[in-house]
């Protein structure tokens, strides 16, 4: 049998579990499992009092493994890991079994079978614990230097802030100048300062800063190493290569503007412009009038959501909202209204998304006479040229589907953002991108700006459409994350990585080929070639596991033995 000493603690969750699962019966059954020396129920296992009781039991009974059957591990895994540590145990001999979200709450009408299921789930947790063993977090040394890719508004902000924290920065920019797209923009909401001014302020700070090294006309071409110590090669347009060591990488490569194909909403006809093109017209018009092609502009129609929220969810489609364009268009209309009065401005929209403080801008535009017309998603407006004018036809939903024809001097297509084509960079960094082409963060709320690659963070619109404000916020988050990582001098990583059984392994390189992160190499050990996992690079995805015919490679916490024993425990009848 086993000499393990496992404690099982079953939570009633104040009725959330105990109303639907007979937790006393569960305890009686679980207590009989081999290896279990103590099984208890509690009303609230997560309460301080119960945690203290469990700690006492762990010490008295000299437990070497614990299972808590309660809510989803997403809620309390770390609570009970901390409890295990306080009791003097390795936190990885603790396993949490979800008998709330995946049992009591979804089987509220069948207590008998819900109880049966709870018993089986806990048995599986016990099986996993029996086959588990203490693990140590993987500690990696870090270099206090950050490589930032992209010197747009996000990258510049990140560089400046990291420097104030005493962290050295290498700023790599593919263009000959820093500043990115914002550098070419006119007045921005809400400060009213121009993008150009904003970038100049940042640039002048950065240029004076000894801790920030700028590499323009350069690309990242190679990356090895791992969090704490990456080795990066950059290549400038003249072919010169430089290698940089950095503890973390911030990807701030930004977006590119959607360019409508010829004919989309009349694009290509004289007087049909994208929002950016119209901003240029405005910036170059004297005050008192707006002129285009030698004509005074009196009527403007804006068509929203061009290149946004279009198409299905297919690869490369623009099914997302570009966030910034509604506000940008409304802001532009206000600027245009200041240049020329009277000016009739018609905004043809699907949904106005001038959220938060930007709502004030929308209200101002309403008050100043901009008219907003909602067209149905499935019936977009049409644009055609007639007698030197443009005619925009739409069905206005707010007048009950009235078909309205607007004679316009200009039609402005409010275009969105799309992901930059970063193929080479994606290959070098091995960063996952979403189907929309933007870089993926791990979780938009729980772990924003972080990627699955430890030590590689994303900032600004490289992650998805953002306005300048949101971009700088996200770059500050990336700064906080990277500084938090580097200023300690080391980083601890979860130990759920792949491990090779040297007895079973006979190096065939199948696992190494399967690994998406190049984390597996070959070494000589005991006179034979075997696979070796670089733990700091391994993400623990387990892709190598099914590749190995010999069952010689496992992911800690999810070993063949653990999984098959869990399956057996789940399948076994409750007598």
């Amino acid at each position, binding site marked *: 049998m086993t000499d393990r000493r496992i404690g099982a603690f079953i939570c009633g969750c104040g009725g959330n579990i105990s109303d639907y699962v007979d937790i006393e019966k569960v305890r009686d059954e679980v207590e009989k499992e081999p290896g279990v020396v103590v099984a208890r129920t509690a009303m609230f296992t997560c309460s301080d009092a119960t945690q203290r009781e469990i700690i006492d039991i762990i010490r008295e009974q000299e437990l070497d493994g614990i299972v808590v059957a309660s809510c989803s591990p997403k809620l309390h895994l770390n609570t009970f890991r901390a409890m295990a540590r306080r009791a003097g145990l390795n936190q990885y001999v603790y396993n949490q079994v979800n008998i709330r979200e995946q049992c009591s709450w979804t089987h509220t009408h069948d207590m008998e079978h819900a109880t049966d299921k709870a018993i089986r789930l806990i048995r599986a947790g016990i099986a996993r614990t029996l086959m588990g063993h203490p693990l140590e977090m993987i500690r990696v040394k870090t270099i206090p230097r950050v490589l930032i890719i992209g010197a747009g508004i996000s990258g510049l902000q990140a560089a400046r802030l990291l420097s104030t924290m005493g962290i050295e920065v290498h700023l790599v920019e593919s263009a000959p100048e820093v500043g990115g797209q914002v550098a070419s923009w006119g007045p921005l909401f809400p400060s009213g300062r121009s993008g150009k001014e904003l970038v100049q302020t940042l640039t002048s700070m950065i240029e004076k800063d000894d801790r920030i090294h700028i590499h323009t006309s350069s690309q990242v071409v190679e990356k090895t190493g791992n969090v704490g110590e990456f080795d990066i090669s950059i290549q400038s347009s003249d072919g010169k290569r430089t290698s940089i060591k950095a503890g973390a990488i911030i990807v701030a490569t930004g977006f590119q503007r959607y360019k409508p194909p010829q004919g989309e909403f009349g694009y290509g006809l004289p007087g049909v412009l994208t929002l950016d093109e119209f901003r240029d017209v405005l910036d170059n018009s004297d005050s008192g009038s707006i002129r285009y092609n030698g004509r005074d502009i009196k009527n403007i129609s804006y068509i929203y959501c061009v290149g946004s929220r279009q198409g299905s969810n297919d690869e490369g489609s623009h099914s997302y909202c570009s966030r910034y364009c509604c506000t940008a268009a409304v802001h532009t209309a206000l600027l245009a209204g200041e240049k020329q009065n009277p000016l009739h401005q018609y905004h043809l929209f699907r949904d106005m998304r001038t959220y938060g403080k930007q709502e004030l801008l929308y209200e101002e535009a309403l008050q100043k006479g901009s008219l907003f017309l909602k067209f149905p998603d499935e019936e977009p407006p049409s644009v055609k040229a007639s007698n030197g004018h443009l005619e925009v036809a739409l069905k206005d939903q707010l007048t009950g589907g009235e078909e309205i024809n607007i004679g316009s001097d200009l039609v402005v297509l409010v275009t969105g953002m799309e992901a930059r084509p970063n193929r080479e960079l994606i290959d070098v960094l091995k960063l996952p991108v979403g189907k929309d082409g933007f870089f993926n963060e791990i979780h938009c709320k729980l772990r924003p700006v972080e990627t699955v690659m430890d030590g590689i963070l994303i900032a600004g619109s490289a992650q998805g459409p953002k306005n300048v404000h949101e971009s700088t916020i996200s770059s500050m988050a990336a700064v906080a994350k990277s500084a938090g990582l580097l200023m300690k001098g080391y980083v601890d990583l979860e130990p759920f990585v792949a491990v090779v059984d040297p007895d079973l392994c006979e190096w065939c390189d199948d696992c190494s080929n399967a690994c*998406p992160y190049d984390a597996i190499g070959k070494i000589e050990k005991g006179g034979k070639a075997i696979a070796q996992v670089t733990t700091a690079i391994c993400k623990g995805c387990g892709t190598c*596991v099914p590749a190995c015919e010999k069952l010689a490679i496992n992911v800690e916490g999810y070993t063949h033995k653990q999984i098959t024993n869990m399956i057996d425990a789940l399948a076994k009848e409750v007598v």
Partner: protein
Amino acid sequence: MTDMVESDKNTRPSILVFATNNISDPGIDLAGSSHMAYPTSVKVIAVPCSSGIDPRWVLHALTAGFDGVFIAADGTDCAYLPNCTERTGQLVKQAQQLLEKNGHDPRRLKMAAICSVCAESFVAHIESFQKALSNM
């Protein structure tokens, strides 16, 4: 009579679900938080990524007595692998071949992408899979 049917539905056909820690397991949690019902014969093991599910585990589950295995994959949302769907699809094919070789109906393995808010879709998949399994 109704109790009988309800109870039968809860015990058979039994399904083992492989879910992923970051995406599909939270989706299944959400089904519970929303008090959606699916049979108790459905049990979940969460792993880091669906591309790491070993076909031999699938065979083991059917040998151990499960009637079917459902892989709740991350699809294109996977934070580990951009081509996770492809890889998992490949594994499903391998696993189905393995099942067939061992005398099991390959349709006893099913895969679908379940995202972190796909609670309804998960329950619907389970329902249709159970129906399909009952007819095998």
